[in-house]
């Protein structure tokens, strides 16, 4: 439907249901967004189901909004079972035009005890038996191979169920064209060489499964030379069906779902949100492990990339803090003086003594302050120290409450309070060991910073843009998470399906064996069995 060239006349458009807004992506595609549900779609909401807005191909999915809208059309779980999934978080739902549904061989397994037979897996998770000696391929697995293939499947499932680690093994290197790749559970291993030599035991095929093949009504033959081309053609035959699902968006070398810049930005958002101390070391960050469970931790996929982003982030943050501190101190000379008082003032010293003792200290000779004020604050501070702690606490609370939410909110850090607070005597009355936890608790109880609209604050364009960019990144991440979760769920379903199927087959084999035993006892049954074998053999050889 994406290639539909049907253009509705503008007059035919119905008004959008409440909450929906129409948008145009930079690529020119119209999409619809629902601010409350965060849904986005290409399909005009409220329109009759047959109505599809124009989709000029090819679609550029580099715009996350377009990608999201595009993805939204493929949310429904696929009806058919076959197909591999692009699990692994690299769903590649961006930047990639939808691939043509051409199937091709991806990997193969020697069928133990049936040399030279091999089992070939296709890109779309189909499999077929192939006899290189005879140049013959069968979608329907010949009966005589069934027990061996069943064993392969069981071994695979056992591995899947218990020993995931073994799947890390590497596939033998073949030919010249195959690159050795480390294999993880969900990674595809491409095998383009059709020469089977029996060493491959089929590891890593856990996510594939045999399916009811549309071509199963009769064996299909290939010549070895154009096996891939034939499969491609077959794939095209099933194209319509493939289009109905969102499988196999991932090709070899799929682009990461985020631009490098976005990924770095997401990682830095993570550092911001966890209030990571930019002066702290990378090793400590890793040892603490606080951030590694966050989805944004893995948007950068190497430790080096993460460390680089962290490095960048720390430098920027340190600069920001330095600049902030400098301007604050410049703005209000009371701040360094009061900090100094908190540290040094004592009721044991009268002002003249105090002044004499510390006359060389910076805050004591700052020309921006009058000596008269310094004296007044000194006395006041010492007087306040005699007040009960409860009074000092409630005074501090009053002070904190007087700060607008834009300057003090749950995003504030206790070591970076607004100058308004720092320049107030009430701030220095309590000992820092009591005061700082008190302030921290207070901050935690506050609400989030007001947005530009509600706060009526004038935000500069850069801040607004930064916030919008961040929202955009987060939406893209949510989308990715959703796709990954969906895929995982589907994988599990497939595994269950396969287990059930294997149980059925096991039962069938058991039955066959029982019949075989009975056959020894019963002449008649034995004859029937022999008859069946002959029929099967004929069917195979035909």
């Amino acid at each position, binding site marked *: 439907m994406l290639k539909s060239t049907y253009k509705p006349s503008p007059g035919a458009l119905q008004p959008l249901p409440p909450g929906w807004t129409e948008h145009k992506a930079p690529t020119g595609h119209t999409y619809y967004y629902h601010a409350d549900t965060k849904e986005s779609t290409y399909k005009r909401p409220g329109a009759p189901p047959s109505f599809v807005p124009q989709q000029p191909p090819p679609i550029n999915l580099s715009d996350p909004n377009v990608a999201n809208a595009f993805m939204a059309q493929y949310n429904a779980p696929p009806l058919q079972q076959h197909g591999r999934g692009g699990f692994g978080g690299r769903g590649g739902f961006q930047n990639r035009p939808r691939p043509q549904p051409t199937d091709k061989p991806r990997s193969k397994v020697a069928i133990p005890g049936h040399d030279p037979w091999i089992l070939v897996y296709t890109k779309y998770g189909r499999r077929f038996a192939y006899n290189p000696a005879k140049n013959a391929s069968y979608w329907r697995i010949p009966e005589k191979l069934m027990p061996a293939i069943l064993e392969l499947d069981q071994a695979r499932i056992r591995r899947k169920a218990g020993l995931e680690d073994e799947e890390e093994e590497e596939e033998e290197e073949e030919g010249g064209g195959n690159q050795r790749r480390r294999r993880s559970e969900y990674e595809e291993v491409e095998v383009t060489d059709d020469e089977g030599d029996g060493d491959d035991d089929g590891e890593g095929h856990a996510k594939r499964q045999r399916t009811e093949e549309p071509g199963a009504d009769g064996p299909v033959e290939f010549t070895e030379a154009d096996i891939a081309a034939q499969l491609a053609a077959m794939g095209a035959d099933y194209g319509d069906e493939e289009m109905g699902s969102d499988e196999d968006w991932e090709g070899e070398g799929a682009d990461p779902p985020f631009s490098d810049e976005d990924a770095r930005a997401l990682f830095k958002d993570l550092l911001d949100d966890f209030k990571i*101390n*930019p*002066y*702290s*070391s990378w*090793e*400590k960050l890793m040892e603490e492990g606080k951030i590694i469970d966050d989805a944004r931790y893995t948007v950068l996929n190497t430790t080096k990339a993460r460390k680089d982003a962290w490095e960048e982030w*720390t*430098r920027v943050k*340190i600069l920001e803090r330095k600049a902030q501190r400098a301007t604050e101190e410049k703005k209000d000379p009371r701040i360094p003086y009061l900090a100094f008082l908190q*540290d040094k003032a004592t009721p044991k010293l009268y002002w003249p003594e105090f002044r004499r003792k510390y006359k060389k200290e910076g805050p004591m000779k700052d020309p921006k302050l009058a000596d008269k004020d310094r004296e007044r604050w000194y006395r006041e501070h010492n007087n306040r120290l005699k007040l009960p702690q409860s009074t000092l606490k409630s005074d501090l609370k009053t002070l904190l409450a007087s700060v607008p939410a834009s300057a003090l909110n749950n995003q504030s850090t206790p*070591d970076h309070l607004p100058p308004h607070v720092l320049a107030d005597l009430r701030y220095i009355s309590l000992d820092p060991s009591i005061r700082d936890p008190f302030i921290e608790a207070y901050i935690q109880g506050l609400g989030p910073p007001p947005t530009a609209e509600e706060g009526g604050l004038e935000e500069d364009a850069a801040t607004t843009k930064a916030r919008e960019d961040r929202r955009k990144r987060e939406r893209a991440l949510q989308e990715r998470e959703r796709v990954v979760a969906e895929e995982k769920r589907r994988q599990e379903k497939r595994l269950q399906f396969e287990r059930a199927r294997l149980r059925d087959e096991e039962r069938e084999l058991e039955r066959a064996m029982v019949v075989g035993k009975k056959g020894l006892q019963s002449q008649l049954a034995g004859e029937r069995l022999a008859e069946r074998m002959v029929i099967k053999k004929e069917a195979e050889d035909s």
Partner: protein
Amino acid sequence: MPAIRPSSKRKAPPDGFSDIEEDLLVFGNKMKDAQNTPTDNIPKHQAQWPIFQISHQRSRYIYELYYEKEAISKKLYEWLLKNGYADAMLIAKWKKQGYEKLCCLRCVQTKETNFNSTCICRVPKAGLKDGQDVQCVSCGCRGCASSD
């Protein structure tokens, strides 16, 4: 490796100390753990390795904050050196070309090594036989040549 002065005997730290206090505390705790770990079952020359490594990491941390990120003031940096949070001698070496990654001072003091020459860990990887795994006796360093 200067020992850290007990806090009772030193002046209050300069501004900016609170930014790095927690990391220093973690280093301090690691150091204590390393010093209190029994070394009965460890070859004598290995017993000091963890202590050298933590000392190296802590010096590196402060070095990077001051020289690379310019995150701390000169005043604070000097205070840290004076109070034993970082090894000034080792840092002095790092500033010299060819010694940017030096693990410890012992490894460039020729007479103390087993080989009566510069420590094996100072040999660039390129100068070693393929896959040769080295670990120096003095601090357990596995290679600290600048070119590695």
